């Protein structure tokens, strides 16, 4: 699995109002890039463009993988909503990708993947029986099951409590290592912990910020990580409205 770098250059308008203009975004290969910004700045629009989803906006420009090959079939997506299908058990939820492509689902691998995210023995449970943190673990297992070189993360931990969130950050960083990851977030602490590269997105601008040193996930309590978090928050607050 060779993880390609991603790029996006262009402008997006929503009903004539610019969402972002002349944006130039680089997502390096095999590393985590955090796109940090306030709500409504167009972070999710960028992610949705890569995902090929309906953004509701008109995009003028180009985006794709730097190796020139199409993105289809090379991406996995994980969002704030776990998007588990309530009528399927956990194993079937994790294996849904194969079923949606008309392939035979590998249920043994689905069980192993559930075990990897700490849900061993729960494969026949239904999503409704789970806590929010557990459900997001299943969503991670489903993402891992897809085994794609590019992973798009759309605020995947923002609905979790602080403790669960930090645990999920550790687990996700560990299991999605060496992939090209674009993480959209509004949480400076998350960007400070998880970004090999951190980009602050404001109206019409993307500013790279030097991340703290060290491999990800960085410790929650290290002075340089906390310092970087404070610095990121200061820069977010300084953005024009």
């Amino acid at each position, binding site marked *: 699995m060779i993880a390609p770098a991603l790029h996006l250059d262009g402008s997006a308008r929503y009903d004539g109002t610019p969402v972002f203009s002349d944006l130039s975004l680089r997502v390096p290969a095999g590393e985590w890039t955090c796109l940090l910004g306030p709500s409504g700045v167009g972070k999710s629009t960028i992610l*949705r463009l890569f*995902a*090929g*989803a*309906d953004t509701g906006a008109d995009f003028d420009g180009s985006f794709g993988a730097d190796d020139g090959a199409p993105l*289809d*079939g090379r*991406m*996995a*997506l994980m*969002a704030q*909503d776990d*998007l588990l*299908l309530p*009528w399927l058990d956990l194993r079937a939820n994790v294996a*849904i*990708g194969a*079923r*949606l*492509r*008309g392939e035979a689902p590998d249920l043994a691998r689905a069980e192993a993947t559930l075990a990897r995210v700490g849900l061993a023995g729960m494969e026949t449970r239904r999503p409704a029986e789970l806590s929010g943190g557990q459900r997001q673990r299943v969503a991670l297992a489903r993402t891992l099951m*897809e085994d794609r070189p590019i992973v*798009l993360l759309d605020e995947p931990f923002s609905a979790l409590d602080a403790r669960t969130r930090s645990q999920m950050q550790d687990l996700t960083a560990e299991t999605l290592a060496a992939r090209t990851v674009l993480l959209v977030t509004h949480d400076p602490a998350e960007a400070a912990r998880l970004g090999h590269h951190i980009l602050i997105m404001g109206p019409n601008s993307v500013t790279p910020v030097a991340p703290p040193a060290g491999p990800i996930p960085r410790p929650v309590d290290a002075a340089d990580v906390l310092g970087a978090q404070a610095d990121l928050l200061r820069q977010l607050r300084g953005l024009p409205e």
Partner: protein
Amino acid sequence: MSGWRAGILSALLGVAVWQAVVWATGLPRFILPGPGLVATTIWKSRALIAEHALITMTEVIAGLILGTVLGALSAVGLAASKWARTLVRPMLVFSQAIPVFALAPILTLWFGYGLGSKVVMALIIIYFPVTSSFFDALMRPNRDWIGLARVMGASPARIMWHIRIPAALPGLASGVRLAAVYAPIGAIIGEWVGASKGLGYLMLLANGRAKTDLMFAALIVLAVFTILIHAVVSRIATRLLERY
């Protein structure tokens, strides 16, 4: 079980009011028979009523099954194809402007005096509620589910089969529950217009001969049957949804 108890209490209250009206007004039994007389008639004419009830039940159940299958298939077809929606949906809505009663004579002409025309009648009356409640549910999928499925490489047909249809089954179930109440209406209208069997026919016959007690007896049997079929259909729908 308290639901059942409330139902029985409510039925007893209804019978009491009915008896009170009979006593208070002193209406002759061929205008308003009392509950006691009607009960006696149900028992005495049980063979006759059962024979006709069996016919009506067959019509209702056949109409329900056919109408549900046809309605569900139509809903999926409409949900799957924009062309079908543009071309067929206005026609469906327009068809609802035609009172089903008005169709009964022509259906009898086309499908005969036997079971056929009544089954078609029941089918027509339930087709729209089933189609429209299932269709509405199919058109309200979680957009993010569909976006995720697309990223995973799913075709529209597989998204329909694995996501949209299962997610819309509660909508289909509520349509079928409604249909269980409507279907007997269709069958009875069909029998009124032209039949030699069935509870609707029996009611007309009894009415024509001033056997009001028999008419009431048939009416009560029909009402009880409708409630039963609604309960059974609800039960089946709930069970299936739980298992799903």
